[in-house]
């Protein structure tokens, strides 16, 4: 099962490499990973998605918690949560396709953030599934380049991950 693990950790050199190293060392896989400092600059928030059954996830979270720099972590997929990913995507847009691409972007509530005579650069935010669906709809033949940030997530409601 796909899980979103959100980690609050010390914003210190080496901390990220320990998290990433743990995954390769113990044979766990990372699907996506994003990291940035929080409003409190001494902390970073790291979100990663991984695949695993309950037992594997338990082991992953236990071992992540053991890392000295990890302050707190939560498996967001255990409760209601919001996940978002941002994508920038260059799409071939010539002739009749120009209007078609524009329509698709609108349907997905994306924005065209750069334009040339033959290319639209589209910005789209949403769940990973939605981004996949957009790329699928446009079709491989039209898509020139895709960059995705990886998933960021937060719990719904009152629950917060803070120290």
């Amino acid at each position, binding site marked *: 099962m796909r899980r979103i693990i959100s980690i609050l950790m010390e914003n210190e050199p080496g901390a990220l490499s320990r998290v990433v190293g743990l995954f390769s060392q113990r044979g766990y896989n990372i699907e996506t990973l994003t990291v940035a400092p929080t409003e409190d600059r001494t902390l970073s928030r790291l979100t990663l998605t991984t695949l695993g059954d309950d037992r594997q996830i338990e082991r992953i979270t236990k071992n992540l918690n053991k890392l*000295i720099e990890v302050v707190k972590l939560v498996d967001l997929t255990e409760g209601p949560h919001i996940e978002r990913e941002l994508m920038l995507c260059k799409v071939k847009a010539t002739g009749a396709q120009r209007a078609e691409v524009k329509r698709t972007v609108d349907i997905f509530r994306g924005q065209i953030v750069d334009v040339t005579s033959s290319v639209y650069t589209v910005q789209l935010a949403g769940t990973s599934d939605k981004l996949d669906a957009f790329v699928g709809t446009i079709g491989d033949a039209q898509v020139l380049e895709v960059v995705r940030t990886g998933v960021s997530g937060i719990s719904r409601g009152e629950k917060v991950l803070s120290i």
Partner: protein
Amino acid sequence: MEKLSGAEMLVRALQDEGVEIIFGYPGGAVLHIYDALFQQDKVQHILVRHEQAATHAADGYSRATGKPGVVLVTSGPGATNAVTGIATAYMDSIPMVVLSGQVRSDWIGDDAFQETDMVGICRPIVKHSFSVRKPEDIPEMMKKAFYIATTGRPGPVLVDIPKDQTSPLVKVPYEYPKKVKMRSYSPVARGHSGQIRKAVDEMLKARRPVIYAGGGVILGDGSEYLTKLAKLLNFPVTNTLMGLGAYPGSDPQFLGMLGMHGTYEANMVMHSSDLIVAVGARFDDRVTNHAEKFCPGATVIHVDVDPASISKNVRADVPIVGPVRQVLEEMVSMIEESPDRPDAKALERWWDEIKGWREYHGLRYEVNDGGPMKPQQVVQALYKATKGDAYVTSDVGQHQMFAAQFYKFDQPRRWINSGGLGTMGFGLPSAIGVQFAFPDAMVACVTGEGSIQMNIQELSTCLQYGLPIKVININNQALGMVRQWQDMQYGGRHSQSYMDSLPDFVRLAESYGHVGIRVDRIEDLDEAMEKAFSLKDRLVFMDIYVDPSEHVYPMHIADGSMRDMWLSKTERT
């Protein structure tokens, strides 16, 4: 406030931590630190002959005393030579602080002379690591390093120190912090009382119980309460390889070691039990055999300070995260206060069954009448000569298993060996650490002719410091443990497990300035042992030739359950 250079601060921090001894080897990147060491006399520095030995010596010192071991090595090759020793300490959860030199900060990343990314190399084999970025950080970093190494589940911590950070030209105010507070690290101080109560209820209900105690009981100084608990309940106790000495080895309630080369009775008891009380043990694959066939009828109580050890290989029914000492103490007082006791009749039947298993096999082996002596006889002679009162370090192989099986340790911290990594070359340098910790104690290093050659250069260190270690070289002229597997699983094809052209160890020892004794016949063994231990101020290297064809039994049959064992070359369960 007093102003010190980075190098002086490192040394002062060691003093302020109460460190009396460190093991190391100098080189360019740490010369400022060596100069600071030279100008004081509170911290003694022991010069080894290879950095791997520095780590094992610090490790042995720590295992024998419970204090953290401290190592100082230079950058590049000095640091990489220490890696095996760091990994050894990591696998067995030994508290250690390793100070490694590094090239100047502004050269890092340039492939400078003797530069290696030590923090990167060590990431998977340390509990944590630090890298000094400004001298002002040194006191707090050192405080944290010792705190992390010694608390919770102990382990090695690396402090990497670029040379410019130790410069005598830069002096900054020094104050050693009294306390550390880390929001991201707070080891569990107490087990959950509700869980402890649940565990006690299970123990009082049990009819076929067993206590399975590991290295955590030794690391966490829990032996006293473990013994009380076992006595109070009349439960049988088995120890892992790392736990030997956690429960008195000569006590009738002791079953011996369990696992791959554990005793027949210990493995039978485990398999047939209805309750396993696991304390400070991590259900290693050398213990459980096939995890899915592990002890089918048993409820499992698991006490461990590291939540990641619990339910890792075997699911715990009653998990208790906490330090062994406190948890065992609370268990003992709960039971003492309770009017209930386990069903005495059921326990009596259980003990009858156990006695039957003991009589059936025990730890028997065939003695060669008139033929070459058996390695087991050597360990028994060592036990006799030292009256069971020695510190015994070991290398890795058959000799290690024979020592574990036949030397009965009545106290914790007496049996010192590399279990998790299984590092050949550990024995002699760790004995150095032990002998420094206890200068008047008997220290024996049980080794094989393969292992001893992996750090034999330390005989020179022993001479320099006058360490009267007794090296018991159980010489089977083969990489015996490898050979045993080849006999059992590879049709006797001894691929590269034969040691051709062995040195004359007696003359080798003599050339290092020590006493060498060769023993070939069983008739001479006891006398030679007595003689070796009577030479109280000399290192004696005993080169004892034994039967090369001997195997270690019992031995688990691969992928079976705990009760599936080979009991000799021809008998199995």
